[in-house]
């Protein structure tokens, strides 16, 4: 038997793990990433002549349970038709038995990459507000993401914000509905830095929308982290979202989004009670030009009084 060199061996390993799209309308372009039991690759849809991202269940044995879970993940995402949630185009089975679903290929940067490029605080907050709106939409349809983090948020080339990777999402009140990973009590789902306390403790049945709110607060904290001047109001919003007690967090992602909106409009936010001085400073800051005009008028008036007395 012929000796297989290291290069040949690596090639064969790539050959057998590369998805086989031969009986589909897709042409494999390149692998984009992998994690857990799935890989995501870039493919060309030959019928529609466009690029798509395809997530493939990349486990060597395809049980009915795994197959159903993958399809369920696709269904969860597909039912969420929102500009901030990556749309699913197609679901199918590769000739080698692996399940896949095709979704929009987002050209752009992840949120952490976007922040690293030096985006201003206001821009970050606007993007974050869009994330909250997408998550609020998912919650309104009973879907909890459970793995929100900057790496799962894309900023597209037109500035659009999309939430990705619903692989561990769950439909509230539907125990069959977990998208992928095991949801037995004690199982830890999510990414540590963005995990709510109840997630860290593996209290699967305690996870609800407010667990996502916690993660959103952690994402906001990440976005504020390298900013030179963060207002007390912004810090308070992040802290409230990340309260260790669920009851003390924002009740909904919409509430969080609304407070961010107020922050952007220089309005008082619900997470922070201003004192009189802070309230006045904020108002003056917001209406700077008017205040200057009135001051200029008063100064002019005083000038005229003095000149007329002389």
């Amino acid at each position, binding site marked *: 038997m012929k000796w297989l060199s290291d290069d040949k061996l690596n090639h064969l390993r790539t050959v057998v793990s590369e998805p086989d799209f031969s009986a589909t309308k897709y042409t494999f372009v390149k692998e984009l990433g992998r994690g857990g039991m799935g890989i995501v690759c870039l493919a060309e849809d030959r019928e529609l002549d466009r690029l798509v991202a395809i997530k493939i269940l990349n486990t060597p044995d395809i049980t009915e349970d795994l197959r159903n879970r993958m399809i369920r993940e696709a269904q969860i995402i597909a039912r969420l038709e929102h500009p901030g949630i990556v749309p699913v185009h197609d679901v199918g089975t590769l000739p080698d038995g692996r399940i896949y679903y095709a979704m929009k290929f987002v050209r752009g940067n992840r949120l952490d990459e976007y922040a690293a490029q030096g985006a201003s605080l206001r821009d970050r907050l606007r993007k974050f507000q869009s994330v909250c709106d997408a998550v609020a939409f998912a919650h309104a349809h009973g879907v909890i993401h459970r793995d929100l983090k900057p790496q799962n948020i894309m900023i597209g080339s037109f500035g659009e914000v999309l939430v990705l990777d619903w692989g561990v999402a769950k439909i509230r009140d539907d125990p069959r509905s977990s998208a992928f990973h095991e949801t037995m009590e004690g199982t830890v789902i999510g990414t540590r830095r963005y995990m709510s306390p109840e997630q860290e403790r593996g209290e699967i049945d305690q996870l609800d929308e407010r667990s996502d709110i916690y993660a959103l607060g952690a994402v906001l904290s990440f976005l504020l982290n390298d900013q030179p001047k963060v207002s007390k109001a912004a810090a308070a919003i992040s802290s409230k979202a990340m309260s260790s007690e669920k009851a003390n967090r924002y009740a909904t992602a919409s509430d969080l989004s609304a407070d961010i909106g107020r922050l952007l409009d220089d309005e008082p936010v619900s997470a922070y009670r201003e004192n009189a001085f802070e309230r006045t400073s904020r108002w003056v800051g917001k209406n700077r*030009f*008017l205040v200057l*005009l*009135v001051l*200029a*008028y008063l100064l*002019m*008036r005083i000038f*005229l*009084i003095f000149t*007329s*007395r002389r």
Partner: protein
Amino acid sequence: MSKPLIGVILGAVLGAIDGLTAWFTPAVRDQLFGIVFGSTIKGIIAGVAIGFFARKFHSLPIGILFGVIVGAILAWLVAFLQGGYYFQIILPGTLVGLIVGFATQKYGTPATAN
């Protein structure tokens, strides 16, 4: 709050302040009430005109310019009727028009389209 209403309130307040500063001119101090009243009415008239203009035309520079013109014209009229103190009346009157023009463009609820 509607833009005309902002114009009225701001015009009235600034017009009243304008009139009150006449107290520092001893020659006209005994006519203070009339001056304050007239100045306030002038401010209200300017505010209404500028406010309605802002409701119709949404442009900060043009709104400010309109306010300046209205403020200056009304102030000149008052000074003409007074027969003097042109500088002391027209300059602040113009500035009031500028402030009201800015405020009505920036703040207040625009008219809703039908």
